[in-house]
């Protein structure tokens, strides 16, 4: 008697339904190959895998909330990773390199912020549509990454570098911790700060935001700088996990990040989106993907299933809400 309304209330929200989906995917995979999928080995392995693109999805989320998009995240990630890698290889002295690593990390995040600032200036100050501004700047960042290295990989890092991507803290993979902290931070930022509220309101109606005396330009600059910083952090995770940096790492993550954000319920036209939704979408994706690898299903079938999932979730969302579409 009591459970039914609880369940209805739960499924009434986009995020509630996503939680059910993530759970369902987990259960199905666990049932299909219980010994493998539920092994500690596999669970840890999954926790190592998703943070790098999940962080990109966070970056995508905040830009989508303003009705924009950041197609340059992978370019930024690789460019900043190469900057960090060059520092790590050129400056490395004796010892295990913690100091150099700290330097490389800060420089790369700073470079990410500057790259984001460049996007922000294009979008806020010059008024370019975000999709084009970041498409163009993404090519430029990737190009710079290639020009810096001639296309080959940069490697030979001090051992400390492995810490970000390959180690565990109290048994929890470091990348997972990094992602969890970022997700929490972004979630707080979006829901509990003036910046977050303004950003969502701007996404809902840019003109009204101007009339409400919101500091639009400063806000957009900060949004894209933040996105750049997140991309840089993701770049660091990738660099550490690959123990090298190269201009073409993670090229498939761009579309994946967009897909995750949208699956997570973020409205790509701005105004709505929650971090929890994105996290649940990431989990569903990872469960599905690892599970299917265990079952040796073709990777193309995975693409098919993602697409189907996205559309089914959307049909469920509109079908339930049912006010005419916005």
């Amino acid at each position: 008697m009591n459970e039914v309304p609880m369940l209805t209330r739960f499924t009434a929200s986009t995020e509630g339904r996503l939680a059910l989906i993530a759970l369902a995917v987990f259960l199905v995979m666990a049932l299909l190959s219980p010994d493998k999928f539920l092994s500690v080995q596999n669970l840890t392995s999954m926790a190592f895998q998703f943070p790098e693109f999940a962080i990109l999805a966070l970056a995508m989320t905040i830009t989508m909330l303003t009705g924009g998009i950041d197609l340059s995240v992978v370019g930024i990630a690789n460019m900043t990773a190469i900057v960090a890698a060059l520092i790590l290889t050129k400056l490395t002295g004796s010892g295990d390199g913690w100091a150099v690593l700290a330097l490389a990390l800060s420089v790369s995040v700073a470079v990410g912020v500057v790259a984001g600032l460049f996007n922000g200036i294009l979008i806020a100050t010059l008024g370019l549509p975000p999709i084009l501004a970041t498409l163009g700047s993404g090519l430029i960042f990737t190009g710079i990454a290639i020009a810096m290295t001639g296309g080959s990989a940069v490697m030979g890092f001090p051992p400390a570098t492995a810490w970000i991507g390959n180690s565990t803290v109290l048994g929890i993979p470091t990348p997972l911790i990094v992602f969890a902290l970022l997700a929490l931070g972004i979630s707080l930022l979006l829901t509990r700060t003036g910046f977050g509220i303004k950003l969502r309101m701007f996404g809902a109606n840019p003109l009204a935001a101007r009339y409400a005396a919101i500091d639009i330009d400063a806000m957009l600059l900060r949004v894209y700088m933040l996105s750049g910083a997140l991309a840089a952090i993701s770049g660091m995770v990738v660099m550490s996990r690959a123990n090298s940096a190269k201009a073409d790492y993670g090229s498939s993550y761009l579309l994946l990040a967009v897909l995750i954000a949208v699956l997570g319920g973020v409205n790509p036209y701005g105004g709505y989106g929650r971090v929890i939704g994105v996290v649940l979408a990431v989990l569903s994706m990872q469960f599905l993907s690892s599970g299917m690898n265990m079952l040796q299903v073709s990777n193309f079938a995975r693409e098919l299933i993602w697409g189907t999932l996205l559309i089914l979730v959307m049909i469920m969302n509109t079908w339930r809400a049912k006010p005419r579409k916005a």
Partner: protein
Amino acid sequence: MPDALVTLDGVTKTYSGITALDGVSLSIAAGEAVCLAGENGSGKSTLIKILAGVEQPDRGRIAFAGVTQGPLNPRLSAAAGIKVIFQDFSLFPNLSVAENIAFSAEIGAGARLYRKARIRDLATRTLARIGVDIPLDVAVETLSVAHKQLVAICRALATEARLIIMDEPTTALTEREVRVLLGIIRRLKADGVAVLFVSHKLAEVLEVCEHVVVLRNGEKVAEGPATDFDAASLTRHMTGRDVAASPPAPLPANAPVLMQVENLHKDGACTDISFTLHAGEVLGISGLLGSGRTALAKALFGLVAPDRGSITLNGKPVPTGNPLAAAEAGIGYVPEDRLTEGLFLTQSILQNIAIGRLDAHGSTAGILDLPALMSEARDWLKRLSVKTTTPDAPVRSLSGGNQQRVVLARWMARSPRVLILNGPSVGVDVGSKSEIHGIIAGLAAQGLGVIVISDDLPEVLATCHRVLVMKSGRITEDFDARAVTETELAHRLAS
């Protein structure tokens, strides 16, 4: 009533818990003008949307010429000769004026090919009919609100109609244009066309309508021939109480100068504007359509960068051309088009108010005290009597007048020193209007300077101490509001 053109019987409509219409019955005969009166949120627009086939009623029967209709849709309604001027105009911003005017006519005629000459011809004729001159080929998005409203009216007039529904068609129009429109309504009636008219301007209602229906909270509370009503009784039916208009308290003689505007100039929009605003003063700015009032207001609020000129507030210069600086200095602006400029339609009512307070609100390490912020916003909802059951609902779900109050609340929450209100009671019912006027008076009493831009002459006289009249971008007159009567004012505007 044997063969009424349109009959509604027991129509009920609820929106997720809110009963917008509750068993309303109504009939309209050919050649009759019926007025639908009621406070904000009483269900007028909902009734119209149902007749237009845009919304489906939950219960009730609708009949055209005695024939009961199945579920309606916009095409069926239009085919039955029902033409609507929507409160939000429902125009196509990207299409030309001519296309906007002729579009429904062409669709109705089942045209497959796009015949430009025919469309321009129809548009020209219709515009000529209401006697306004709007270039046919410009995109509607570049027009002023008033021109948009005129285009919306033309669109409804462009086709053969049996019932024309007008949802507050005169909100953005000047006196002259209202005259023309009322003339047209009379002619339509003579041709046997029925008119369903919604307006908060009671004088014009009583002037053209022979039948009045009053809604309150979605229910029909009164109905009868227009001759049975006068402004006062109509008001009483709508609000359930008496509303008295009282002129503003006189301005103390020693009121200090608050804002000084000198030689503010923007080529093509406003020319060398200078005036002063005193603390506690309500300054009216009136003028005909396109006289430059909005441009001036935007220049004051920094939305338009003037070519030259200065604004000083409390002796300190306010940087021009920057809304942030203007807001920082204490200038607030309630824009004229609340749907596109004022509101974040998909966001909650509370957030729409709270957005004004974000920077002023205390925060620890950037984290806002959300509960406090929201309860403050809730307070404002109460103070401005916004009619809503769930403050977390999107602001889109509010009726027009209630939406306007939300925008007002946002600015009032910032405690500005100068508040510029562009059409403060556009689409607001008499009851709330007088409340808003009361609020304006209250603001002035606290020492704020208020600028009211309006061509609702009773409103100007009821709220303002002083009136500036603008003509082609210049201030042509500056006089004490108490020294003039409504007719005198109308005369000065028009001359």
